């Protein structure tokens, strides 16, 4: 109790500010200061959120989005870590692929949807592959960097002690690159969410992005806010939750701050 009081004394502004904002919003929408058509009252939004949850709509769309994020992230992880490690180990491969990656990376992933839909069956598969593109690059870049920043002395010492091939890889290179790989995975997961939602807005009929876009098209503003809230919550859980999980499960692996 006392700890809570102390925490509140320290953080009262951070706690109070959103409360004040919500109350002010509620009041301004109720009195017509804000147009309710654009800014429905928070209490109305909560009501809509509740009914969307109650009739199962929200669960269905959230589950669809989560499954897509899972597949896209898995694809990006397997390919990104694999190719990233290979690029870290073989200089020629890295030098060859660097310019290709540099040219492709700045392209917004949504733009890949047309090309991907020429390559694989359009629909679910195309959506997932498109969503994996940006995450793949992030994971590959950080993994390559992770291998390259390993102290050369460590590698040479290992080689002197006859660690070669698989052993060198499994007991020196992979553990050495692990902190960077984790940072890449965390960033990649965040981007998987972003791109899945964006691609859902463009082309899907299910999923949170699609729900948001359809709510806009039929001007169900309260549902838009409710969906937005769920997407924001998902973003918070994915980015802050993963950091907390890593700190708990793998306390010895530090997260490399991204610049």
């Amino acid at each position, binding site marked *: 109790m006392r700890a809570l009081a102390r925490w509140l004394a320290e953080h009262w*502004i951070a706690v109070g500010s*959103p409360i004040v904002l919500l109350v002010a919003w509620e009041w301004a929408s109720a009195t017509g200061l804000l147009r309710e058509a*654009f800014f429905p009252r928070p209490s109305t939004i909560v009501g809509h959120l509740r009914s969307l949850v109650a009739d199962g709509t929200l669960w269905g769309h959230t589950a669809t989005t989560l499954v897509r994020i899972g597949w896209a992230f898995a694809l990006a992880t397997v390919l990104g870590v694999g190719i990233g490690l290979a690029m870290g180990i073989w200089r020629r491969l890295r030098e060859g692929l660097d310019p290709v990656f540099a040219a492709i990376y700045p*392209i917004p992933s949504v733009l890949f949807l047309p090309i991907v839909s020429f390559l694989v069956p359009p629909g679910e598969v195309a959506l997932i592959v498109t969503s994996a593109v940006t995450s793949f690059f992030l994971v590959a870049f950080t993994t390559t960097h992770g291998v390259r920043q390993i102290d050369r002395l460590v590698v040479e010492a290992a080689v002197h002690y006859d660690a070669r091939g698989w052993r060198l890889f499994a007991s020196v290179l992979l553990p050495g690159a692990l902190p960077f790989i984790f940072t890449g995975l965390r960033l990649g997961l965040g981007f998987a969410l972003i791109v899945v939602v*964006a691609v859902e*807005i463009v082309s899907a009929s299910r999923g949170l992005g699609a729900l948001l876009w359809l709510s806009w098209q039929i001007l169900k503003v309260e549902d838009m806010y409710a969906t937005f809230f769920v997407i924001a919550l998902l973003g918070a859980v994915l980015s802050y939750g993963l950091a907390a999980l890593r700190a708990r499960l793998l306390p010895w692996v530090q997260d490399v701050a991204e610049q």
Partner: protein
Amino acid sequence: MGLAVPAALLALWELCSRLAIVSPLYFPAPTTVGWVLADRFAAGDLGAQSLVTLTRLAVAFALAAVPGVLLGLLMGIARPVRDAVEPYIAFIFPVPKITLLPFLLIILGVGEPAFVLTGATSAFFQIVISTLGGVQTMDRHLLEVGRNYGAHGARLFWKVILPAALPTIFTGLRLGLGLALVTLVAVEFIAAKSGLGHLVYRHWQMLSTPEMYAAFALVSALGLALTRGLRALQARVLTWQDDVGV
């Protein structure tokens, strides 16, 4: 080595497309795309569409950079401001900014302000976070040395805090510009009727694939030029960023 691999890949693509190993409809030969690119630039419309995207990007970036740096600095200097604003930044930052588009479309109507502001928000949050980070992670010794030499208030800010935070601020601006470009092109793809993103969408729908790839290549070139250019600029302008240590 260098550009050998990209050149080899393009040559392979050319060959596969010419020999119809891959469908030339979906994957037109790079030379065909190159001709269309030159042709469209000569006709003027591709240049005009690039200019539309660039103009949107410039406005979005300006709208994000000025308030973003100011807010970030303010949050870094004044603890109450940081406490009051940080919850919102933390809540909105991981959200895909493209989801703000429908809200802005409703509030501002379908048009440029909604498109540009969506791009601006994605840069804004990155810039605020980097600027705040720049102030927070600056070497504390610098502050103490500054104070010992009698720098307070505005002087301390201009002579010590700002220069120390500047490299991180610049990195934030660079990242922000990249994010604004990505979001803007996605917005164009989804909702606008002009710009490079819209070109990719339109030519996809019409299956005029050479034009589609031409627009695609331009987006890539634009992104590459911006990120490379700013990185070079950063190295040149902020020459002190590697020796801030006292």
